[in-house]
């Protein structure tokens, strides 16, 4: 069963960029996109993603708040917060919910460590 990646960002352009980097690194993984935190939570109702890439800077609810809610629903899911500007306060919050950081703009290089860590987790779960 393929791995499904949830990409949440209110910029469509940013979702495309993240999707491209994903496709380059893990061509067999599937992606689902959400343009807002609300839409992401809506999607979770009938689809269960294995990995989440969430933009920090979103209009209504910031990425960490969403990550926090997703963490409750899916405790084992690898989550990365995408941000261009990492502040110490964000680092502490992200550490608390066990989220990783991916620097913005998302490129295969910046995304690779997080995805390979996630891949590792799926692999060791299967064996």
């Amino acid at each position, binding site marked *: 069963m393929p791995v499904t990646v949830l990409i949440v960002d209110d910029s469509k352009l940013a979702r495309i960029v993240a999707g491209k980097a994903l496709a380059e690194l893990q061509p067999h993984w599937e992606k689902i996109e959400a343009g807002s935190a609300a839409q992401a939570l809506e999607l979770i109702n009938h689809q269960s993603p294995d990995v989440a890439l969430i933009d920090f800077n979103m209009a209504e609810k910031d990425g960490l708040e969403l990550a926090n809610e997703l963490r409750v629903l899916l405790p084992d899911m690898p989550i990365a917060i995408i941000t261009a500007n990492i502040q110490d306060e964000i680092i502490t919050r992200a550490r608390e919910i066990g989220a990783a950081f991916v620097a913005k703009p998302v490129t295969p290089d910046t995304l*690779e460590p997080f995805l*390979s*860590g996630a*891949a*590792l987790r799926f*692999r060791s779960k299967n064996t």
Partner: protein
Amino acid sequence: MSVRIDGRTILLEGRCSVEDAETLLLALQEQPDASVSVEKVQKIHMAVLQILLALKPEIMGADASLFLSQNIFRSLIWNSDTGAKSF
């Protein structure tokens, strides 16, 4: 695939990512006296490097990345020189 086995030599090539650690470990468990060529390494993940440090295979080649050759492989060779004798 960044870990390739060629006879008694294990070749690390390109970007050695975290998954390569398991392949390298298995290869060195199978052939504990194999040499490891790092000549074509561009980047090496900590997971892969610590396997080399722990198992101290003979390291061959000077790699292309300046950071690695200056900071990692030189000391790696140094350690395997002295380590093998003092343990």
